[in-house]
């Protein structure tokens, strides 16, 4: 078990390096001159020169690369070009909001999606199953920012039940603020997880051991949950990882709709303002999150299916 964990952790090292290298390539080589993109076309040659010296853009590329790696790994993101604040402080302020939104969305998605999927799978080709199919079709098609805007217009603007913007202060207020944004993402997650649960469970319920369980007189809930759902957990876990990632990327648009603080909103504003240091940090943080979630999913697999440890 511990050996497996170590192997997975070691395996993540080249991935992290590769991700950082891609970020470096994207930030330094693709957009042409970062000095111009940061200071704008109006900047004088002198200003550009000062900026390049300060950012180390005059150093040889390999030197820039290693200094970039060193800085990213020690969380030295530099200062925002717009307001001069330490980028690491900006990240530290915004990160909890994004994490809380993503987690809330995933939990709500599981809470609705998995039981819905079980309900559909235990009533195949009947009303619950048809409802599941309709729900998942809409969930796959509706854009998160549209759903968010509709919820905002209906429940915040017209009914006044929820706040229109912000992240809230204190636990209760924050939960109150996160509810609608999380519901937006959770709707789409629930459609995905529900469909997945239905498919996985239907397959398992057709297996011999389920028939055996029924034959020896096990009650239906026990058959479905002990024998069925437990064995369907592996594909559901995969789906859970995918929907956590999707919730993370969906959080960007949802933070914009609800005007909530968060890494996504920080990154999008930085792109609009060409705040080079913040863009670089935001992109790196998101990329690291993706790597971390994938790693975490690998670990959850081991808990769900002990056979993987042996491989």
């Amino acid at each position: 078990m511990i050996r497996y964990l170590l192997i997975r952790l070691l395996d993540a090292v080249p991935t992290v390096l590769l991700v950082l290298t891609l970020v470096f390539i994207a930030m330094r080589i693709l957009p042409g001159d970062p000095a111009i993109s940061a200071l704008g076309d109006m900047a004088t040659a002198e200003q550009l020169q000062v900026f390049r010296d300060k950012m180390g853009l005059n150093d040889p590329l390999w030197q820039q690369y290693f200094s970039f790696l060193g800085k990213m790994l020690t969380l030295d993101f530099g200062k925002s070009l717009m307001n001069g604040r330490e980028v690491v402080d900006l990240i530290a302020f915004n990160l909890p909001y994004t994490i809380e939104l993503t987690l809330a969305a995933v939990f709500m998605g599981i809470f609705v999606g998995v039981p819905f999927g079980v309900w559909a799978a235990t009533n195949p080709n009947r009303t619950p199953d048809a409802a599941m199919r309709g729900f998942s079709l809409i969930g796959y098609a509706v854009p998160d920012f549209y759903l968010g805007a509709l919820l905002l217009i209906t429940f915040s603007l017209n009914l006044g039940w929820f706040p229109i913007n912000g992240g809230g202060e204190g636990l209760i207020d924050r939960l109150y603020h996160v509810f609608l944004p999380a519901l937006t993402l959770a709707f789409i997650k629930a459609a995905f997880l529900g469909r997945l649960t239905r498919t996985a469970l239907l397959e398992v319920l057709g297996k011999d051991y389920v028939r055996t369980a029924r034959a020896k007189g096990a009650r239906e809930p026990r058959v479905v949950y002990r024998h069925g759902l437990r064995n369907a957990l592996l594909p559901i876990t995969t789906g859970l990882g995918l929907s956590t990632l999707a919730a993370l990327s969906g959080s960007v648009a949802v933070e914009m709709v609800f005007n909530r603080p968060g890494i996504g909103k920080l990154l999008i504003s930085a792109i609009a303002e060409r705040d080079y240091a913040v863009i670089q940090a935001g992109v790196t943080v998101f990329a690291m999150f993706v790597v971390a979630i994938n790693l975490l999913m690998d670990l959850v697999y081991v808990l769900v299916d002990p056979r993987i440890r042996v491989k």
Partner: protein
Amino acid sequence: MTEPVDPATTETMEPVPPPVSVVSTLIHVIFSRPATIVAVAIIVAFIFLAVFAPWIAPYDPVQQSILATNLSPTADHLVGTDQFGRDVLSRLIYGSRNSLIFGLVSPVLAAFFGTILGVTAGYFGGIPDRLISRVIDLLLAFPELLLAILIAAALGGGFWNIVAVLTVAFIPGFARVARATTLAVKQEPYVEAAVAVGLRTPMIIFRHVIPNIAAPIVVLITLWVASAIRLEASLSFLGMGTQAPNPSWGNIIRDGLNNLFGSPWPIVGAGLLITLIVLSFNLVGDALRDALDPDTSK
């Protein structure tokens, strides 16, 4: 049977179904499910709107009018007007052009490059395979929207940049499917036979491998048209796609959010259209997948 086997003869002996049957399966698939018929009708209407937008739209989509801002739907303005007094219906109709162009161009380009990468990795194996697979695995770990945002952050907006962003975001998916199917096809007797009779590698790849991995790739294109339309809308919504004042369904919703107290109609209209079109392409894509490629699922 003393003569050497002519490659042309082995070709005709292969049990490859002629292309006609694909078309007839297609027609069968479309007309066997009522939902798919409706979906196809919606897609046809959507393409018609996009192509003939200048003739269908009642107003100029960027024409502002201070006297007619934030109107609710009326007979003159069927979906009302926005905060600049622009006719929302006309903007929605013109916006369909962006969705159609990005929806078609990016998946097709991604299919092209992804197939090249996937077939190279799958057919030749070894170091190219290791390199390509590693990068594909890494990129696949990223949700497409996040990948698109990250690339757009570096590239900025503009038509070709959006096309590039969406294409790069889609390439890994195509490359993975192309690689997997190439690995399978490579084991088939007809490829072994082609190698045995001394056919050149490019010939084998173009005549025997690519035609036989085409079905899953085509299915994937259909499914990803929907993703491309949604992604373009998301990017435009975030201000990184189609730029104002040009209408796109995404930036119509963006403008609408800045005008929440003015009029909800632009948001409602644009969102409904995106949902409807994405839903239709998903339905047709699913039906195609069931018909052409029952083994693979996304």
